[in-house]
């Protein structure tokens, strides 16, 4: 095959792969809206996924948000007060923490913490024949394995982002007070933040958390389930899942920012 042929084949592979991921994503959203795809076993897996991805990660997310609050929010407070532009504090925080930093960091943590676990779990199940065992009992792997994990990841990323935003603002405000950078009453701080939130920001956060979280779930599950017969394929699938999830996250973030604010 010619050099151009090789390049073309590579791109066609990529297109096929992303088309497959998009198809699974569409199927998940369509199935998630139908109660018949939510028998009690699927609901149990969903609850376990929420517990692992959201509840057990809350402390770590809160710690990261606390540090971000100190490093970012307090700097905004300090410099805007110095420049006499403290009224811009709300819009600036919403722009940086709510629109970009919160969803991005939370997605990163979920990819690293839960995405890899999902890919490895799916890969190990496939390798050890457990997916076949489910199929043999009439449990569709899509309904029992993929749907609740993807939905769990999407809901978890949204909830954790809310936790992240609240904790970073609280820690930022009180750090500012301690460092003497804060000039206003807490009520004024909260007011300035809420006034800066527009409808577009709500849409932005929703898409960057729910869609990105779901995309992470879909990529990690499909990569895990693509494992063949060799044990060495499991870590390779996990590695691919992380790289592709991060790539998808940046693409979604950039696209949503462009669509929302341009």
């Amino acid at each position, binding site marked *: 095959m010619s050099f151009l042929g090789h390049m073309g084949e590579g791109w066609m592979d990529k297109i096929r792969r992303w088309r497959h991921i998009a198809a699974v994503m569409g199927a998940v959203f369509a199935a998630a809206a139908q109660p018949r795809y939510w*028998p*009690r*076993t*699927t609901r149990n897996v969903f609850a376990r996924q929420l517990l692992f991805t959201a509840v057990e990660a809350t402390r770590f997310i809160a710690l990261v948000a606390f540090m971000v609050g100190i490093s970012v929010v307090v700097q905004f407070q300090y410099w805007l007060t110095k420049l006499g532009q403290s009224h811009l504090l709300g819009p600036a925080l919403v722009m940086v923490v709510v629109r970009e930093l919160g969803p991005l960091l939370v997605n990163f943590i979920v990819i690293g913490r839960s995405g890899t676990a999902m890919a490895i*779990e799916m890969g*190990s*199940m496939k390798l*050890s*024949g*457990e997916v*076949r*065992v*489910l*199929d*043999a*009992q*009439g*449990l*569709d792997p899509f309904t*029992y394995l993929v749907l609740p994990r993807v939905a769990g990841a999407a809901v978890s990323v949204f909830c954790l982002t809310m936790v992240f935003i609240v904790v970073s603002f609280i820690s930022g405000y009180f750090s500012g007070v301690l460092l003497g950078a804060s000039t206003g009453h807490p009520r004024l701080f909260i007011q300035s933040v809420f006034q800066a939130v527009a409808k577009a920001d709500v849409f932005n956060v929703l898409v960057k958390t729910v869609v990105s979280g779901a995309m992470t779930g879909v990529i990690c599950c499909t990569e895990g389930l693509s494992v063949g*017969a060799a044990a060495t394929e499991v870590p390779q699938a996990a590695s691919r899942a992380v790289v592709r999830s991060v790539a998808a996250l940046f693409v979604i973030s950039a696209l949503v920012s462009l669509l929302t604010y341009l």
Partner: protein
Amino acid sequence: MSIASILKFDRVSCTAQPPYEQDLAGVSLALGPGDLGVVLVPPGTARLPLADLAEGLLIPDAGMVAFEEEDWLEWTPDDAAAARSRIGRVFETRGWISNLDVDENITLAQRHHTSRPVAELEQEAAALARGFGLTELPRVRPAVLRSAVLRRAEWVRAFLGAPALILLEFPLREVYVDALDGLVLAVQAARARGAAVLWLGDSSGDGARAAALPGAQVWTLSGARLLRTGAEQNPAAPAPAAGFASPAAEH
């Protein structure tokens, strides 16, 4: 509506793909309500794809496999999944979901496909477990249980919920032979309530014992073919056995 045939293989040929290694050629068999089919497999034979074909998990190269008189290829994916919920199976190897406890594994399919209360399912499973010599349902991960206990737990799962078809792939492997009586009683009780049973067994071990059961239809694997051996000793389905009364069939 009565069904004349629960499982039917019509001139089925299949080239084995991993994890299976034994091809099948021109296999024909039919099991109706109350029938027991025994496939005697010579020692040392590679893994057979027969049970996966019976469940519609493999598509044959040629021929047709029908469950409850419908070709597996005709079912929609959702209907096929629902149909598989009416099949109980003891797997030849690796039949467990490792991140669920054994009792959760046992009731998994019933919890997924029916709305029967978990307490009721556990009660039925516990009764079956006692029949197989287990004192209670194991509530630990499969990885920490002895294989003999796991095998009996797999029998419980195969018979739970009054399935229409029961596939037993070498059910006595890793189990002491004294457990056979309990399994035979359960098989006879299932047949008495109208289930069909397909038993794959070692020709020199449990298979030979199963083949001696009343009314058993026996096939012997010879190369890639199944050869019918002997006539039915007693075509009538057996009466219900004590201790294995049929559980509620409606879910």
